[in-house]
């Protein structure tokens, strides 16, 4: 009796684990399928431009405003702690390194997943529910090439630009709080920042991170939309899953990338 119920619980754990692994595998297979069918979107860049508008330009306001606020908070908190050690000029270093290395790529990717990723999933899911995708297939138009790939590349291209804008805006916010409002020395703020931030190690690594996040979020968003059950409930569930899965993927990939970037590739 008891053995049975324990076995049942173990079986459930196994089932869940296998389902998660299956989901990851299906997403990666779908990513490969997008890459194979990408030629059309590069022959017609207009398709990608349209998606960069919907994914990138439409996310601009939320990214810029959050970047400003995050930078200002970093400036306030950094100054509060650093002044105990008498090195409040280092607040520029703190703000810049935190933003360029971590906050810029990660927070903008999380915002991008909930702002643009969910929109992509809902759009593709609804196209599937209203049988627009089947109609395309009927006309011998590959829906992956015509609908999915441009959205994927639009997201991949927008993500690094958004992360860069987030970091730049955050550093400006930190500058406003630390130098203009609190009165940290302007020259020391920038010169210490320039001495501590390395172009290759910090800026370029941040861009690499945001590119990886862009690929992950776009692949998950298009996959969830394309595989969504063709019902109103199915589309809403897929949209939620996009945000949850992308956020987890971003944070897990960030840990991996950070470990490799700081400790080397071997």
């Amino acid at each position: 009796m008891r053995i049975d119920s324990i076995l049942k619980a173990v079986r459930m754990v196994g089932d869940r684990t296998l389902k998660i692994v299956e989901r990851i595998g299906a997403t990666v297979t779908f990513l490969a399928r997008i890459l194979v069918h990408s030629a059309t979107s590069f022959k017609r860049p207009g398709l990608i431009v349209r998606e960069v508008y919907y994914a990138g330009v439409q996310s601009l306001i939320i990214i810029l405003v959050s970047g400003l606020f995050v930078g200002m908070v970093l400036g306030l908190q950094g100054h509060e702690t650093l002044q105990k050690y008498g090195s409040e000029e280092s607040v520029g270093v703190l703000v810049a390194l935190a933003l360029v290395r971590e906050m810029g790529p990660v927070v903008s990717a999380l915002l991008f997943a909930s702002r643009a990723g969910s929109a992509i999933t809902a759009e593709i899911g609804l196209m599937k529910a209203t049988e627009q995708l089947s109609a395309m297939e009927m006309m011998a138009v590959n829906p992956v090439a015509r609908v999915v790939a441009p959205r994927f590349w639009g997201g991949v291209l927008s993500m690094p630009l958004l992360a860069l804008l987030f970091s730049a805006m955050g550093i400006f916010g930190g500058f406003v709080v630390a130098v203009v409002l609190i009165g940290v020395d302007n020259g020391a703020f920038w010169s210490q920042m320039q001495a501590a931030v390395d172009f290759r190690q910090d800026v370029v690594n941040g861009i690499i991170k945001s590119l990886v996040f862009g690929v992950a979020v776009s692949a998950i968003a298009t996959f969830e939309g394309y595989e969504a059950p063709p019902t109103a409930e199915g589309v809403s569930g897929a949209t939620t899953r996009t945000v949850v899965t992308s956020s987890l993927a971003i944070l897990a990939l960030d840990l991996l990338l950070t470990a490799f970037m700081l400790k080397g590739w071997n």
Partner: protein
Amino acid sequence: MERSTLNLWVGFFVLLGFMAFLMLAFKVGNLSLGASGKTYVVTAHFDNIGQLKERAPVRSAGVLVGRVSSIHFDAVHYNAEVRMSIDEQYHFPTDTSASVLTSGILGEQYIGLDAGGDDKMLKNGDEIKLAQGAMVLERLIGQFLFNKAQDGNTAKGAEK
């Protein structure tokens, strides 16, 4: 939405992103157009490098001239072999001396180069023979106490 408006907005977005990149590269990061990026490597053996890390700055007269590229333990001479990449636009005489210094009391450690007077210049792969390691606080204090004690002894001896 009309195609031309779409292109305008996307163009605006890309330019904005590019401007952010330039700001991060030049205003925030230390990428400068003047630096050629080409470097030559010189080595130095220190008996103690203290807290010196890879990528630590190499300065001469306070100006950044290069960076530490690698640090190894030399198992033959039992000391630390430090390789540094120096910017190709700066040349130093062969009798230049290198020492491990600290910026500020709790600051990072760096290598300071003091130029000598030789006519010949250091080339790629050369070694800096005059190398002084880091000051270790415990040893300094130990030496100070030892000297103090010795002073006391000599003073007593003079009294007698």
